[in-house]
């Protein structure tokens, strides 16, 4: 990598590699480092011992360090930082790194490595860290020379936070963290091989605006890129200006307010009828920061063949996301925020206006799909329905909490029933679908926003994958609320087994569950068990009143409830199964 290096800092202080790491993090304004010590990072921990620049959060498992840093990044937009030791420290962290990578979350991961002379000798706690993590990072570095350490960390932050964001790993051998060098932290780095496009092509933007204005059945499809790209304001203005329907992916929720009547709900495998049907039947589709993935459009040939005349405009910062699964007509590579701003300027100056009659007819059609009321569920049931819990959670937190989730049915219900009006309030693992993220995500969010309500919607299977973090929550006084939708099954696995495997529930039943109330209490928290619909609201209210306590709400829900609508894997997005079909 060629760098325009600033003149050598003759006056820079001489610091050890470990001290350089701490100073670099300080220069970057890092607030929290999530980590776990071990042999190869002992020099770095020694340098952390008496510094005040950032707080170190000691997790109970390296996976949680990554998830917590990731949750912090998702909620704040700032890069999350994690620090783990070599060997098993790294391998434990890999799930967290891959989770962040799939959802394009900026992280800087600092890992210890065995001393340079021992690399390759199968030393104690050695693993090929750059090799193991290469497929799940945006970039990684092995620092073999202490003089390269500061500039490498600068590059790591630069790469992690620009273009399509992602995790960047810096592997530091133990001898490098012990050696000394002059410290100089460059303000900027230039990498000749890395220069993400920012501005969209003006000709393409003009074409896109023209297509949008000529649309008879328009649709705006919004992904996580709008959240990551801080483009909510521009997007919201555009949707309202045009008065076009808007749908969001699981990762895009909150980018456009769910309470606006133009929002037709989430789309995809568990999307609403109105969102999926409008996607399939529109004549002009504007895709913003989304990637047409399998959980969104299902089968790409069905999506294309079902509507061959549909024109697609696709805005994304990553050229490789464009025309990957679906051919698009007007690709625009650039920052969604800048491109949307350019489009808004053109739209406001345009003489043409959308055809009001066509638009009214389209909204009427969407109204018919909406009237199917595809998210309806039995509100009279004697057993607690999970959807009801989420509705109450939304009501009690006034729709303004940070909601993290794990992965499975509860995640889909949270996405469907907690109506997010703001970006960065919905924190979950979309791409990799990592069970166990919910609790550490909530820790990262609560540290960033100590005064905000933070709830983790989870299930009895997912929560057990990182439950040891209840201990971390105690140590750092993180009073998050855990809403455990306990149906004694890996619910989504059970649902697929019911639909596609003839009710053969192989290994999806959770026997021998712990008493979660006692477990929460054992960790020094408050536990509540709720098994009647009438008690849900009261328990939630009580939990949120306990401002300074972590509350574990073990809510016993209907074992047979399924997530609807559902597009079976490999099917087209208009081929939904609805609750009433069964």
């Amino acid at each position: 990598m060629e760098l325009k290096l600033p003149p050598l800092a003759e006056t820079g202080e001489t610091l050890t590699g470990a001290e350089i790491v701490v100073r670099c993090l300080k220069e970057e304004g890092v607030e929290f480092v999530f980590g776990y010590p071990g042999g190869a990072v002992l020099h770095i921990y020694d340098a952390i011992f008496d510094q005040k620049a950032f707080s170190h959060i000691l997790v109970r498992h390296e996976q949680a360090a990554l998830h917590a840093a990731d949750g912090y990044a998702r909620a704040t937009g700032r890069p999350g930082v994690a620090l783990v030791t070599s060997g098993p420290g790294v391998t434990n962290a890999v799930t967290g790194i891959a989770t962040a990578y799939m959802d394009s979350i900026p992280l800087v991961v600092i890992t210890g490595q065995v001393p340079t002379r021992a690399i390759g000798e199968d030393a104690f706690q050695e693993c090929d860290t750059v090799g193991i993590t290469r497929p799940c990072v945006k970039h990684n570095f092995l620092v073999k020379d202490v003089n390269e350490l500061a500039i490498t960390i600068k590059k790591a932050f630069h790469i992690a936070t620009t273009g399509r964001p992602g995790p960047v790993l810096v592997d530091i051998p133990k001898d490098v963290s012990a050696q000394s060098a002059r410290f100089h932290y460059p303000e900027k780095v230039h990498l000749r091989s890395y220069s993400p496009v920012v501005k969209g092509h003006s000709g393409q933007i003009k074409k896109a605006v023209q297509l949008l204005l000529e649309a008879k059945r328009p649709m705006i499809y919004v992904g996580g890129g709008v959240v990551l790209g801080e483009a909510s304001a521009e997007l919201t203005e555009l949707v309202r200006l045009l008065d076009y329907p808007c749908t969001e992916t699981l990762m895009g929720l909150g980018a456009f307010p769910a309470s606006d009547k133009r929002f037709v709900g989430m789309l995809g495998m568990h999307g609403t009828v109105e969102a999926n049907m409008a996607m399939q039947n529109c004549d002009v589709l504007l895709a913003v920061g989304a990637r047409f993935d399998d959980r969104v459009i299902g089968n790409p040939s069905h999506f294309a063949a079902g509507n061959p005349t549909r024109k697609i405009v696709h805005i994304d910062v990553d050229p490789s996301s464009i025309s990957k699964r679906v051919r698009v007509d007007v690709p625009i590579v650039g920052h969604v925020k800048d491109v949307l701003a350019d489009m808004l300027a053109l739209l406001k100056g345009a003489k043409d206006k959308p055809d009001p009659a066509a638009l009214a007819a389209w909204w009427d059609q969407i109204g018919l799909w909406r009237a199917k009321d595809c998210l309806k569920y039995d509100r009279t049931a004697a057993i607690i329905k999970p959807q009801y819990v989420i509705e109450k959670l939304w009501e009690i937190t006034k729709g303004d909490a940070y909601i993290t989730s794990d992965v499975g049915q509860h995640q889909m219900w949270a996405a469907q029933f907690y109506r997010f009006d703001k970006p960065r309030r919905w924190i979950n693992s979309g791409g990799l679908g990592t069970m166990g993220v919910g609790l550490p995500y909530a820790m990262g969010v609560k540290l960033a926003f100590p005064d905000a309500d933070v709830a983790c919607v989870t299930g009895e299977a997912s929560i057990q994958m990182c439950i040891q973090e209840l201990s971390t929550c105690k140590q750092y006084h993180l009073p998050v609320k855990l809403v455990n939708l306990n149906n004694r099954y890996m619910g989504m696995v059970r649902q697929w087994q019911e639909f596609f495997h003839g009710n053969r529930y192989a290994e999806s039943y959770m026997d021998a569950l712990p008493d979660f109330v006692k477990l929460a209490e054992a960790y020094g928290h408050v536990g509540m068990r709720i098994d009647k619909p009438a008690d849900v609201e009261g328990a939630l209210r009580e939990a949120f009143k306990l401002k300074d306590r972590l509350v574990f709400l073990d809510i016993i829900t209907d074992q047979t409830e399924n997530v609807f609508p559902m597009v079976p894997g490999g099917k087209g997005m208009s081929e939904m199964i609805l609750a009433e079909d069964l």
Partner: protein
Amino acid sequence: MRHILSILVENEAGALSRVSGLFSARGYNIESLTVAPTEDATMSRMTIVTTGSDEIVEQITKQLNKLVDVVKVVDLSEGRHIERELMLVKVRAAGKDREEMKRTADIFRGRIIDVTDKSYTIELTGTTDKLDAFLEALDKGAILETVRTGVSGIGRGEWVLKA
């Protein structure tokens, strides 16, 4: 469709694994891959021969460009270009076949670069097609060992691939 990609990469440890890892992770084909430093020691140049539909090759190019160590990617097959591959072949060359082997090598403009009583080692340069044709022209039983470099390619004319 066969494509020849020319790639300038930073001459960094691990750059080759990033590129080859990308191909295996995404299920793309590599028919051959060559790499060596360029006149600028900070950069290496790779030539990768791959096959795939236009959509796949477009994705390969985009994915390669996304790698932080990759400086530039060009699909040489999109324009006029020259490709060459070097092959060393050790063949049986004893008795009455010895003269015939020499003649065949001459026809293909091969050079005999090592000799024993019973064998020749022949050096041959050309397109992949030509090297294949040479091997086909030989009696299968006569071929003792082959080693090929894979394709290196360059654009025709004054156009150059620069950082």
